[in-house]
């Protein structure tokens, strides 16, 4: 009874059932009206590829049953599977360029994505408190964009640094670490290189947008 009353109330407010209709599926939209939104996060060994679709009329389009999304990098290739409203796959590759292909029978729409330069990360495994922490990476980015750095742990407050220049290293001052709890703890440093100027190219689609990052992590022990 309450449900009926609720529906009557909704109707009286002018809330039509069409407002809650699900997004269209991609196979209802011509390929050349679809935009692929691609996010790629590489750790140098594997790339996590996440994709969602939109059309000129809808900000979200679900992948239809007649369509496939495939990620390709060199010899590596894998079909993307459902992650909620997105599609994703972990692709074993260290490549810095990859394609995301929307397949519909013999037709193809392709987004070509370029990642920032790969790098290696090095640092200590132990850090006595009140000692500076120097982390090094390489090769440096010819464009001069240093990776953003973030340290998280249970015993010191998070520290975030975005160096304006890429010199291949960064030294945290001992006073950068604000004590939260006494005692030792494990800390993780994440270095992420992104480059918003890297725009994807595309074929057979309305467009493509991408965000690519190279992410490396370093784990070390902070000692009292």
């Amino acid at each position: 009874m309450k449900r009926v009353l609720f529906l009557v109330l909704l109707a009286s407010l002018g809330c039509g059932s069409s407002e809650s209709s699900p997004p269209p599926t991609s196979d209802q939209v011509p390929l050349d009206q679809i935009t692929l939104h691609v996010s790629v996060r590489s750790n140098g060994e594997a790339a996590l590829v996440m994709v969602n679709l939109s059309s000129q009329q809808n900000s979200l389009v679900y992948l239809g049953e007649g369509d496939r999304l495939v990620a390709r990098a060199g010899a590596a290739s894998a079909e993307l599977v459902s992650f909620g409203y997105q599609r994703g796959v972990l692709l074993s590759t260290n490549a810095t360029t990859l394609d995301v292909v929307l397949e519909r029978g013999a037709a193809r729409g392709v987004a070509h994505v370029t990642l920032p330069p790969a790098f290696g990360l090095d640092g200590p495994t132990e850090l006595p408190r009140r000692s500076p922490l120097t982390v090094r990476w390489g090769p440096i980015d010819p464009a001069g964009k240093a990776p953003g750095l973030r340290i998280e742990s249970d015993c010191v407050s998070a520290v975030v640094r975005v160096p304006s220049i890429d010199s291949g290293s960064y030294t945290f001052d001992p006073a950068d670490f604000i004590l939260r709890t006494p005692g030792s703890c494990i800390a993780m440093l994440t270095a992420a290189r992104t480059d918003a100027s890297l725009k994807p190219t595309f074929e057979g689609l309305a467009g493509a947008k991408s965000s690519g990052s190279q992410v490396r992590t370093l784990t070390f022990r902070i000692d009292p």
Partner: protein
Amino acid sequence: MSAHGPCEGLRAVRLPPLFLLLNLASAGCALSERLPIEDPDQVSTRDISITLAVTGSSTGTVVDVSLTGPGGGLWLSSTDDVRLGPLALAAVSKDGKRVYSASVPSLEGMLSLVVTRRADEGIEVPIEVPPPPTMSAPTGVVVRSAAIALTWAPPPATATHETQLHVRGTCIAPLDRTLGFDAGAYTIAAGDLLDGATKGASCPITLSVERRVNVQLMRVYGLVSQSRSIVVESTP
């Protein structure tokens, strides 16, 4: 009819604050009205809160103490006394507010904020005024793409203040950092100073170290700040 009306009459009576407000409200007195209490001796010390601001810089130290009673800011009677350590604070008006104030060349140490009252009990709370972080200037022109090592006078081991670093300049984005501890040294890493609106410009930059103590004792609230600055020329 009383010359002062029912509201003034109620205000003149020494009542606990909540009771006073309830009585004022029930008498039709607007709570938004300022309550001018003519006789500070009628205000109980328990109804007074104190706001303290100690601001030390290379030009001197300014101490401002505001006393607030049920009727707003107040000065005590002339026989009462407000002191911070050796300083006797004078009742003055600043920006239209009643404060007790003093300016001295320097002030530091563990001091007592003492309010002495003839008509009621006084107040005494300890206030830590950290030593000034007198800085040593980097030699020559600072190159912002390189690390900048700063040093200043270290504090005593017993100090409990928080330390902040501030960097300002027309050619850089402002930089503010809270330090995990105060050892009298900090190195600004290469690449920490970002360009301001104009990329790659040279300009003087002001490097400041500030020692801060937040005060929250009894009914005394405030901030004690000791800062020192140096200005150096900088290039990208």
